[in-house]
């Protein structure tokens, strides 16, 4: 019970190195190494603008999910139902667009479905109370089942130029989806760093008892955080639907939770809560995106890709735990 044993890491000093953070530096190095490897293996295509935009597009969906997941993990929780919510929201979007004949109405319905699904997670976790991992493991299956039920397990094509424009349109040479990701990133960074609610989420994850005694209504916070995570999944679903022009119950959204959690942890999130950054998570997203893209370009079979992704998650947690043990938190 000495002071040094419980003392945490010091606040980042004001130097440039400190501001970026040691963790982010090592992520940047890992990213550069990956780029060098795949650049050397496929010099003909890897660094072409087209491939780089492909990587950018591929990480939009993951990026949105990983940033929301970061907030959930910082608060001391975990949301493994996000992949299913993506699928569910694309199906709701497609059905609603079909029924009303209006793409905006479909988009609205899809986003609402995600918000609602997330709120359901939050309510189960808070009022069950059910452990967050178990609650969202359950809804991961339930939401996927719901998505299949909406059209007997089949996908639903969507017709509508406004959605197509969202999927393929560009602004200043960059696809809309990438702009969306950049906007989301800015919003998440401001939210986590500059708002009272954002800071309170770090407090909640750091020590829920302290947060509660300091007057933070932690139940309301938790429900809102999962609702936000569900909404973010629906935004990701919107990007997916605009790209495939269809509601897809499973294709394109399976396994996203694994990648989102991996990215958040690579980025420095502690599963115990209270620690993690948006920038770190986005670096994690880029690493996963480059790895996916590079493995496809170098013709690594899909099965090995799954193996690699699983190993990456476990490796990220091991590194994280080692650091925690070293800093004596």
């Amino acid at each position: 019970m000495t002071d040094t044993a419980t003392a945490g890491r010091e606040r980042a000093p004001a130097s440039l190195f400190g501001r970026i953070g040691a963790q982010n530096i090592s992520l940047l190095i890992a990213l550069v190494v990956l780029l060098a490897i795949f650049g050397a293996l496929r010099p003909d295509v890897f660094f072409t603008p087209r491939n780089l935009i492909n990587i950018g597009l591929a990480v939009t969906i993951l990026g949105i999910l990983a940033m929301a997941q970061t907030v959930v993990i910082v608060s001391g929780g975990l949301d493994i139902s996000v992949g299913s919510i993506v699928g569910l929201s694309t199906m709701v979007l497609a059905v609603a667009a079909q029924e009303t004949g209006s793409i905006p109405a479909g988009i609205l319905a899809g986003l609402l479905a995600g918000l609602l699904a997330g709120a359901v997670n939050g309510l189960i976790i808070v009022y069950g109370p059910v452990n967050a991992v178990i609650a969202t493991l359950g809804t991961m299956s339930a939401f996927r089942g719901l998505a299949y039920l909406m059209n007997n397990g089949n996908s639903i094509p969507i017709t509508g130029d406004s959605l197509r424009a969202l999927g393929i349109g560009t602004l200043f040479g960059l696809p809309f989806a990438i702009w969306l990701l950049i906007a989301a990133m800015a919003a998440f960074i401001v939210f986590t760093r500059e708002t009272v609610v954002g800071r309170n989420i770090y407090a909640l994850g750091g020590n829920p008892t302290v947060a509660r005694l300091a007057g933070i209504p932690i139940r309301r916070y938790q429900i809102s955080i999962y609702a936000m995570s569900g909404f973010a999944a629906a935004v990701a679903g919107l990007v997916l639907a605009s790209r495939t022009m269809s509601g897809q119950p499973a294709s394109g959204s399976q396994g996203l939770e694994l990648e989102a959690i991996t990215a958040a942890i690579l980025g420095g999130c502690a599963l115990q809560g209270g620690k993690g950054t948006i920038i770190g998570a986005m670096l994690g997203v880029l690493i996963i995106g480059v790895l996916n893209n590079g493995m496809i370009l170098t013709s690594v079979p899909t099965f090995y890709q799954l193996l690699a992704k699983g190993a990456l998650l476990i490796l990220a947690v091991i590194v994280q735990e080692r650091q925690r043990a070293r800093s004596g938190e």
Partner: protein
Amino acid sequence: MTVPVVSVEGVSKRFGAVQALRDVSVAFNAGEITALIGENGAGKSTLMRVLEGEHRPDSGRVLVDGQPVQLNSPRAAHGSGIRVIHQEPEIIPELTVAENIFIGDIKARGGIFLDRADLERRSLDLLRTFGVVDVLSPGQRCHGLSPALRQLIEIMRALRPGARLLAFDEPTSSLTEDEAQRLFRVIRRLKADGVVVIYISHRLREIIELADRCVVMRDGSRIADEPIAALDEQRMVRLMVGRPVSDLFNRKERALGPVRLALEGVTTRRVEGISFEVRAGEIVGLGGLVGAGRTEVARAIVGLDPLRSGRMAVGGQPYGPREPADAVAAGIGLVPEDRKQEALLLMQAVRDNVSLVVPDKVSRYGFFSRRRERALVARHVAELRVKTPSIEQAVGKLSGGNQQKVVFARWQARGPAVLILDEPTRGIDVGAKAEIYRLIESLAEQGLAILLISSEMPELLGLADRVLVMQSGRISGELHWQEASDEAVLALAMRSGKETIERRVS
């Protein structure tokens, strides 16, 4: 002169700044019941931990049958025949009575299958010996057994072959009078069988009834070791307390204002019929033993434990908190007992820790105004003379006293009408203590209503205008500061007898 079965010689043990044991020597003889008494933190539990092999003494030695032994592990102590029965019996609810008694020593047929017949035979023998064969059966699951029966199982477990010394750590705190009497019969039987018995309790009448000899501890030292016939309750209390109240306090007359906090018949899962008022400018002390329900009163006030009945009012307005957030909104601040687990985000900066309860004062439309935040935090940190290199320093790196000042700074920034202090100087060195005391006094002078929970007698007597004493979840008496003394408080805290036991909250 017979050789004592177990004895400790010159044992000292230090934890950080705290000298838990100071050159303690005691001999425990076969067939003798030795009572061990002292205030909270006097060193009784540490001494037990040494005998149990959980703590290794810094100096001194433990002897069994006159031979020095190394009690490096609970296993070694167990091998020497030393068994401690803790306050909270460790019973596995899903196992049967027999399995719980013989856990770790269950015979297997062919090395694989449970030998149920042997298990049942052995446990029936024990149950008969203890005269409980009609209440407990070997095959019964332990789920839902009363505390008394759970404790009995723990005792039977401890009595496996080879037990030579049995120590009971406050065994009757959760027992009814009848159950306690049954336990005493068991203990007397052990004594007759030549087992060494150590009996720790705050209930002095019990000790006079049961023990042959009484060892008194205070501040880690053995103060007295006398036959029970030479002692009475009053003398025991005097021996346990017997410490000069220092002049850390300077009592001033304060003008009392209107009632800020009022409780009327407040009953929760843990406390019953709590009624009192705290006025502006008043410091009301809440005394009693650990576990008497003092912290639980604080929990009820801040909305952590729901009220079963009773009413509360803050500033004359009815007040029914459902969440600590409601308490903060109503102007109640809590400095909790466990600073590191309940009050501070150790990894976060002093700035974050102070501004946590004043989001409205450091933000606009939900966005931080860093300038305002820094100014506010810096002002309160300076006012309380928190020693920190900067307000960006992680709170976990500060000393205990400065950490506690950060908690006070937090509530200064909020400006509550009522402040509840639960053990405000725990783990703080004497210099910082004096500063915290002056701070508490000046807060009262500024017109705060203060409820002070403390196990440190000098603190309670030195600061409080009046002291409410709790026992077993109820307020057992009230003392004005002029009539409050260590003896008077302890007498109310420990008042034994059937009357209080019957009124005990179950």
